[in-house]
């Protein structure tokens, strides 16, 4: 990149994006970002801009794109309300460690602090929800700052970066020279596992009687799936996942024992409090995973593999911390481990599995009562997609059911809002996921509540003919809140009953093929038609209105107090 260009700041931004290998961005234009849009117009053959229908949609689309592809998602917006509309997506990407860059326009340097039209302190607002942010006020800063932004977003524990660029910096000229960033003196993104920690971890694992692995998104972010699987198979240790770790190890793997946490599987939760060594790989002991920390795995020695030193001992006291990238740590650990099996320990999971099957799963997947269950919808979806789809979920009951029952054979296939629990995530994230993996089947599973939070993105799907399959599980309620009201607020259904519009007609208005099903007899064919359809497709499944998701760890309870009903 020795070529010297004398160009505007706005054009420099495009060149930076191209230099970083970006060919697709999401956004919404407005006054303070217009010079950049003018350049996007000129560069449209090399850089595709997808106009979402709301800036929040742009961030979630960028997240979906990033999560499915492993690349950095990019979203751009104007100043003021355009910038503030990015905040939910930034917070979501921050807590779920998603690499994303948001570029916002800002009023001219001379207008900063004057309460100018559409001026807002987006740096101040976005600080707590970004890995890094920076305000550019001079065109000459653009190449270096954007190079830093990409480096920071994707290195170490990934996260969102916001770059705010004043309008004068977009108009002014600079001598452009781009150099990718590989080093910031105050930033050490990847710690290296110490020899002693690896030895100590290996010793614990080799002598454990009832070892248990819980894995999270760290396995996916470091692309450690293969070595992780080798680690599981060599040690013979049962492995359970957090919802962000889902799909890192195929669902049907004999050592994959299911999901931990509030609506996770019975065995992994119960046996968390029975294991003697708990091996946490790239996960952060979120409260939805641990329940009451005072009674979480107290009997176990804890080995925590994580890239972020701030996660060590944050919630759960570790015996051995193995700092570093999961792939590197597991690669270094594997030769130190003995090949073992844990047959009788594994069979303890099976005992709980049978109890859960009889109490919950059988009724969810093979219901005998008339109302459709969310579980049977997911079961048929698995069959029709041969467990190969990218499943994008929103937040609530359908999300938990999808995570519990969807089956995966490929990594980076479960895209959901985990830490932030952002309703409205799925529809725009599915757009991004489809564009990030166009060859794959992408199915957005959404509740009737969350769907209406970002329903305007049907416009984006329509305009781009994005072949996402939208599966709305309509129970006429904000189902998860209703469930809590039933269980903990004596069935006082405060503001959780939804009067919904005709979703099929709404989809049809966007020229999207649409159908509704409410009978078991036509469900299979309806899902088959949805998957067989080449373009975007909308399917509404009217499900049982007052179905509860079980098992469940009530808030504040211990993982071993998980309820089957």
């Amino acid at each position, binding site marked *: 990149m020795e070529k010297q260009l004398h160009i505007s700041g706005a054009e420099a931004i495009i060149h930076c994006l191209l230099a970083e290998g970006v060919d697709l961005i999401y956004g919404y234009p407005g006054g303070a970002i217009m010079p950049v849009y003018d350049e996007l117009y000129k560069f449209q053959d090399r850089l595709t801009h997808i106009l979402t229908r709301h800036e929040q949609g742009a961030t979630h689309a960028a997240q979906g794109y990033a999560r499915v592809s492993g690349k950095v998602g990019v979203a751009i917006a104007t100043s003021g309300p355009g910038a503030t509309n990015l905040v939910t997506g930034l917070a979501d990407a921050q807590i779920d460690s998603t690499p994303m860059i948001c570029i916002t326009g800002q009023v001219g340097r001379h207008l900063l602090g004057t309460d100018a039209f559409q001026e807002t302190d987006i*740096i*101040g607002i976005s*600080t*707590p929800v970004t*890995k*890094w*942010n*920076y*305000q550019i006020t001079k065109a000459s800063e653009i190449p270096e700052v954007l190079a830093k932004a990409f480096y*920071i977003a994707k290195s170490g524990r990934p996260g969102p970066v916001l770059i705010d660029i004043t309008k004068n910096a977009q108009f002014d000229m600079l001598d452009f020279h781009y150099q990718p960033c590989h080093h*910031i*003196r*105050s*930033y*050490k993104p990847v710690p290296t596992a110490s020899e002693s920690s690896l030895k100590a971890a290996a010793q614990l694992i080799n002598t454990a009687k009832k070892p248990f692995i819980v894995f999270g998104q760290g396995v996916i972010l470091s692309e450690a799936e293969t070595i992780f699987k080798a680690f599981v198979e060599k040690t013979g240790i049962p492995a359970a996942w957090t919802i962000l770790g889902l799909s890192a190890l195929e669902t049907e793997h004999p050592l994959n024992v299911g999901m931990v946490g509030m609506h996770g599987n019975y065995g992994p939760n119960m046996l968390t409090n029975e294991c003697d060594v708990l091996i946490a790989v790239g996960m952060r002991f979120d409260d939805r995973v641990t329940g009451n920390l005072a009674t979480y795995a107290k009997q176990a020695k804890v080995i925590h593999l994580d890239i*972020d*030193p*701030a*996660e*060590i*001992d*944050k919630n759960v006291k570790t015996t051995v911390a193995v700092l570093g990238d999961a792939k590197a740590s597991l690669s270094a650990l594997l030769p130190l481990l003995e090949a073992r099996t844990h047959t009788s320990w594994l069979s303890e999971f099976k005992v709980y599995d049978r109890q859960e099957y009889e109490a919950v799963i059988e009724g969810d997947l093979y219901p005998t009562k008339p109302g459709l269950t969310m579980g049977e919808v997911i079961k048929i979806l698995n069959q029709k997609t041969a467990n190969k789809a990218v499943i994008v979920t929103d937040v609530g009951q359908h999300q938990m059911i999808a995570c519990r029952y969807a089956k995966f054979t490929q990594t980076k296939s479960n895209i959901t809002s985990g830490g932030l629990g952002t309703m409205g995530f799925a529809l725009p994230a599915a757009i991004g996921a489809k564009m990030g993996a166009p060859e794959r089947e992408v199915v957005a599973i959404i509740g009737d509540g969350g769907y209406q939070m970002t329903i305007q993105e049907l416009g984006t799907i329509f305009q781009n003919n994005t072949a996402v399959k939208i599966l709305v599980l309509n129970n006429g309620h904000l189902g998860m809140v209703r469930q809590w009201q039933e269980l903990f607020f004596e069935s006082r259904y405060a503001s959780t009953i939804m009067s919904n519009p005709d979703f099929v007609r709404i989809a049809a208005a966007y020229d999207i093929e649409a159908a509704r099903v409410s009978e078991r007899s036509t469900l299979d064919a309806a899902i088959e038609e949805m998957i067989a359809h080449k373009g975007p497709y909308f399917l509404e499944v009217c499900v049982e209105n007052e179905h509860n998701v079980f098992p469940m760890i009530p808030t504040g309870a211990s993982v071993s107090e998980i309820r089957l009903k």
Partner: protein
Amino acid sequence: MENAWYTISVYSENNVGLLNRISGIFLKRHINIESLNVSKSEIDNVSKFTIVVFTTSKWVQNIIGQIEKQIEVIKVFSHTDEETIYQESALFKVASNLLFDERQIQNIIKDSNAQIVTVSREFFVISKSGRRSEVDALYEELKPFGIMQFVRSGRIAVSKSEMQISSLLHNFQS
């Protein structure tokens, strides 16, 4: 876990917005910053934040982890009071006539090891450096005579043990 006083020392790049980023970490955890001082450090172009909090050691560890994670932060240390040499500075503005009418004031100044910085026709200014308790004691003694203005700085502190910033920066560089 017991609350205690901790001095958190942050070495960082000198960038706009970093103060906001660091103070936000305390805000998110509902922990009050009792005292804050930002200045240059012993290394060129490296700033030093000295932050005093009254909280538990568990929260201090959590906060250090979060601050250290910030891109422009080089290194964070925390120390208890016993592990540091620390001071605050205070200025007292007092009416000049008191210096002559109330002979006691001169003794108070002498006994407290304070200094008179300036004297004008209307007022004089006393400067006092030392521990919070010493500054408070002087405040209490002067209060009955009337204090026109009072200001106290944030804590500044150096640790008794070494803070290996230069070698750390050197390692980062390589």
